């Protein structure tokens, strides 16, 4: 069944981190921690993706001395995709943090459930 699990231990670790981030996102009441969990989740996916491009014994895809054989370099595609992904995650983080600041200024708490409780009380 799990034939490659031991070989793919790095992927397994990335998936475990993904699950940890996911749990963080679901469990924590605190918004800041939720955001960190979200970031951890994203980075885990990127690690998973970057591992796809790695080939044993090959070097980084920067052409040295005009050698252009596929046997020399690792797969460049995942690197490019992860680069795009990192940009996405930093912009999302900035947006979430600014939302946090606004929410805190309004309700002086970081707990989403408590905020909705208060909203009910206010009857808005």
């Amino acid at each position, binding site marked *: 069944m799990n034939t490659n*699990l031991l070989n793919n231990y*790095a992927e397994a670790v990335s*998936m475990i981190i993904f699950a940890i981030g996911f749990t963080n996102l679901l469990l924590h009441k605190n918004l800041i921690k939720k955001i960190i969990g979200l970031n951890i989740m994203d980075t885990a996916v990127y690690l998973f993706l970057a591992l796809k491009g790695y080939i044993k014994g090959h070097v980084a895809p920067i052409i040295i001395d005009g050698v252009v054989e596929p046997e020399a370099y690792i797969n460049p595609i995942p*690197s490019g995709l992860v680069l*795009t992904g990192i940009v*996405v995650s930093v912009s999302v983080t900035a947006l979430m943090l*600014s939302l946090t600041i606004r929410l805190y200024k309004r309700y002086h708490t970081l707990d989403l459930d408590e905020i909705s409780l208060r909203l009910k009380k206010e009857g808005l």
Partner: protein
Amino acid sequence: MKKRNLFSSLLDWVWESRSDLYENMTIRDDDEEVNVITKAEHKEDIEKVKEKVFDAADRGSFRKWRFLYKILAVVFAVFFSAVLLITVGQLPKIGEINNPANNEVEKRYIEKGLEETGATNIVAGMILDYRAFDTLGESHVLFVAAIAVTILLRLDKSERDPEDTKITETITEAEEEDKIFEPHHDAILQKVAMLLVPIIILFGIYVILNGHLSPGGGFSGGAIIGAGLILYLNAFGFENTERFFNEKVYKTVIFSGLAFYALAKCYAFFCGANGLDSHISKGIPGHILSAGLILPLDIAVGCVVACTMYAFYAMFRKGGL
């Protein structure tokens, strides 16, 4: 001091239950005025904590529901990771050359990348030439995030009725609050910043300009320059940065960078798809002025990213550039 094993002290540190370092340390306030403001704030906060405690009494069912939710979430996460692990077990091995991912697509990028894009860094050639549409979208993700943060945090002189201003504080308030955290001409910080900021910014420019030759590129270089600007801002305050960087500069840079990017790529796509010659020379591989559009695009992205990062920080600090 009692001798404890490493594990329990690590656990203590993580849980913050007890810390050898903290107990012996005191934070000295360097400014009396600041102290007064924070004191008032602390009182306010304590009031809020009290209010919270009283609130907590009448929500027993709420707490029960939350407990159930927690258990469900943990079960879900465990199930989730089990599924993922099983999947990983079925995936091809890492690092093998015969994996499905290492197919003819990758081969062409490596074999013909230099010839077709002129970039020694295959990743840069890939993201800015072969798959440039993704990257075009990516830079606009940053743009739209900057716009959203601006909507949220920029404080304008609003002439609206007072009941609406509950959520947005006024500019003066925010600046007052920001002054608390502004370093008061810290000599050490300023000296270090004097030394470091030029180096950081130069390094960022180097990373941008060599994006097609060595690791890096517009985005990482721009982020480094942005970090340098943030350090400068922290050391010397807003008065100094506003001399060369205000909202108008920011808007112009963002617009010209993004519009140049989009139009240049539009031209390249149009020529490529219609089989026209784009008349952009590839140059000699390995030289700075080579690789066709990649270098100008890197510079444009770098400027946009640096400005956006700095703008994020400034918005977070006091709600405006």
